[in-house]
């Protein structure tokens, strides 16, 4: 039986009462990174200890809390303390609250620690609070409240208008206004429309979407359901890359739970709104993150892009109007509908609203997820991550993966918003942020990203298929100290060719890492050219 809105409130209340009865609650991170370093046995040990010591302490799983390099992480509910690098030896002290000098040394404040202090968490607000495997836990945090509100009080057009008012833009990287896209789909006259969640996160070093799916899958489902109501779709797909086993498992669990409670399926929340979600698993092609290739892949065809227009809002999956948004975009939707578009529009800069989650990786002291308001200087993010490990100097940072560019240290005060990052030659991208120190060779970085594009090109169009190969070969010549001035000129011609003639975004943006490296670090390329023989 589907839950009614009243029952939804009751369920949430009951869960809050249940958890409130415990003297203490311990939230163990169950995201992939912490799991890989033993959070599962840790959680089992905590649970066993909690049980044997009388059951006054509850041990729950939770999503990624962000400080991935210091896992496994455990958050204590009562005082918000976050314990780093927790081992099974810490179990008694954690459960019984006994003093332990060693544990205290690894205790930081979830709010005050420099890594967290500058963050504003909207997408990640449930991290450390909600158990991704229990729907009641999500309900207790107000989950599906936005959907209930939308279905009870708003017309589809009002939902779209609210998202438009919020100024939310696509978090997949290009930054297309989400409300405008929804409107395009909503105004199409068609018997069938689809909502697709792009979870084919493939940029090297990026793991934001993965963490959101692993840590808060219901949030994404709720966002998709709201979108479906707004644009008039009844079926949705989540396209997840096959490498994300844990995210897929969590999504499957979440979909099953939501269907059981009538939050997905037919007559959602006892209304006339029907919406179901299916998972499609990618087979490891980076290009399938491109929307037309993603659609082809869902249709069971080769994952190859096709020229646009027509854009998916007009002709997408099966030729039907299709709304495609990224994971993080959907995760932003429920709070916008609860707190209003104006609230969201009050955060960030004039043209880029809200927050952005960055996956900070590379040579920083701390690695993990950082969610900051738009407009935060890049330098601030690097500082939050503790700067370069071992006190080294930042040389450059790279955003946007193989489609983005590097930003040299002297430009690190650039604020994170779509336009500013493009102005310095990079792009927002999906949120990967790689920090490089003085030991990193920018020529090597450029070669690495070109090799990635060469590997991932689908091969359909000539410039991308053959051009990435040639550019990679030329960059290899630089690395080997064999490049000539003609090679440099050819590299630039090819970059121009790929950018302007490639069929899809993969080929069009493949030269960006190279071109920004050339623009900001020309001396490194010059230093690795073949030494011209001295004249007579």
């Amino acid at each position, binding site marked *: 039986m589907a839950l009614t809105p009243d029952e939804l409130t009751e369920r949430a209340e009951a869960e809050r009462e249940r958890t409130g009865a415990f003297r203490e609650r311990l939230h163990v991170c169950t995201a992939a990174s912490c799991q890989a370093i033993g959070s599962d046995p840790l959680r089992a040990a905590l649970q066993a200890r909690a049980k044997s010591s009388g059951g006054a302490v509850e041990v729950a799983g939770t999503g990624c809390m962000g400080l991935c390099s210091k896992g496994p992480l455990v958050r204590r509910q009562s005082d918000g303390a976050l314990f780093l690098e927790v081992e099974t030896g810490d179990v008694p002290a954690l459960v019984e609250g006994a003093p332990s000098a060693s544990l205290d040394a690894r205790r930081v404040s979830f709010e005050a620690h420099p890594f967290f202090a500058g963050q504003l968490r909207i997408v990640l607000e449930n991290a450390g609070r909600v158990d991704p495997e229990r729907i009641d836990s999500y309900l207790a945090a107000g989950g599906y409240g936005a959907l209930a509100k939308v279905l009870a009080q708003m017309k589809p057009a009002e939902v779209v208008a609210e998202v438009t008012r919020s100024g939310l833009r696509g978090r997949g990287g290009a930054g297309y206004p989400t409300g405008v896209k929804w409107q395009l789909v909503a105004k199409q006259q068609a018997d069938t429309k689809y909502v697709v969640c792009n979870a084919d996160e493939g940029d090297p070093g990026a793991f934001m979407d993965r963490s959101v799916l692993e840590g808060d899958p219901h949030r994404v489902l709720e966002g998709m359901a709201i979108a479906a109501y707004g644009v008039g779709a009844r079926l949705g797909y989540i396209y997840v890359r096959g490498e994300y086993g844990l995210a897929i498992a969590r999504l499957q669990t979440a979909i099953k739970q939501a269907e059981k409670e009538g939050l997905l399926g037919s007559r959602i929340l006892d209304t006339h709104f029907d919406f179901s979600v299916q998972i499609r698993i990618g087979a490891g092609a980076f290009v399938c993150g491109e929307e037309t290739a993603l659609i082809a892949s869902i249709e069971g065809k080769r994952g190859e892009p096709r020229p646009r227009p027509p854009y998916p809002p007009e002709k997408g999956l099966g030729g039907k109007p299709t709304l495609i948004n990224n994971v993080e975009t959907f995760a932003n939707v429920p709070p916008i509908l609860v707190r209003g578009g104006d609230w969201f529009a009050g955060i960030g800069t004039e043209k880029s609203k809200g927050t952005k989650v960055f996956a900070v990786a590379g040579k920083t002291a701390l690695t993990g997820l950082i969610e900051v308001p738009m407009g935060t200087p890049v330098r601030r993010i690097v500082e939050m991550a503790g700067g370069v490990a071992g006190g080294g100097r930042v040389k450059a940072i790279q955003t946007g993966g193989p489609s983005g560019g590097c930003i040299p240290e002297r430009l690190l005060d650039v604020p994170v918003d779509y336009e500013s990052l493009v102005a310095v030659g990079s792009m927002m991208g999906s949120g990967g942020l790689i920090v490089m120190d003085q030991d990193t060779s920018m020529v090597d970085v450029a070669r690495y990203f070109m090799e990635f594009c060469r590997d*991932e090109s689908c091969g359909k169009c000539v410039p991308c298929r053959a051009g990435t*190969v040639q550019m990679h070969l030329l960059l290899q010549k630089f690395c080997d100290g064999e490049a000539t001035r003609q090679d440099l000129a050819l590299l630039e*011609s090819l970059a121009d*060719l790929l950018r*302007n*003639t490639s069929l899809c975004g993969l080929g069009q943006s493949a030269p960006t890492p190279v071109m920004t490296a050339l623009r900001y670090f020309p001396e490194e390329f010059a230093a690795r050219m073949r030494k011209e023989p001295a004249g007579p």
Partner: protein
Amino acid sequence: MTVKTLTIDGRMLTGVSGQSIFTVAWHNDIKIPRLCHLGGVSDVGACRLCLVEVEGRPRLQTACMTEVEEGMVVQTDTPRLREYRKLLLELLLAEGNHVCAVCVSNGHCELQQMAAEVGVDHVRVAYRNPRRPVDLSHERFGLDLNRCIHCTRCVRTCDEVEGAHVWDMAGRGEKLHLVSDLATPWGDSEACTDCGKCVQVCPTGALFVKGAGVGQMTKDRRFLKYIVYGRERKQWSVP
């Protein structure tokens, strides 16, 4: 069906809605270079040779896949486009093993013809000299992947015109290659009707009739026009 007037290379021309820039230009004797486009089968926009400049659109558009619109202003032959076409053809020539002197299609090859048209006089990029197989298992026809440019004309013709769908692409990036059935020898294919349409539409000497010597492989694809014409009008015999 509505009439659209547009300007191509400074000439005022008319087309009808649904027609591509390429078709309208072609009918008016403006021959835009192309390799993957083939009248009668669907377009894929893969070779990028027919890219044109359309006023008001920031990106170059494929002439074969862009529908004409009222008031459109199109440039098909600017210095910039010529440069791009040259480099694209150089990339193609360096990617496979295109040795005209020993090729069955020498003198009748569309790749060769395009290269001559846009003025490719030397190749700046590195020749890849890939190792690619030759499939001679079919009784009448041969496939030499060294000469394949991945235009997928054969794939589309076999699927859309003959209805057999013997051909398809496998692999990705530089490893992309043509396969028959599920990557089994062509001669073993039970789907293949031995019609030879794929051979006739192939722009290079990749697909050829066995027994042809150097320069002897001429191709005739007029049949396509008749089939497509008949199909459109559901008219299968001449009255």
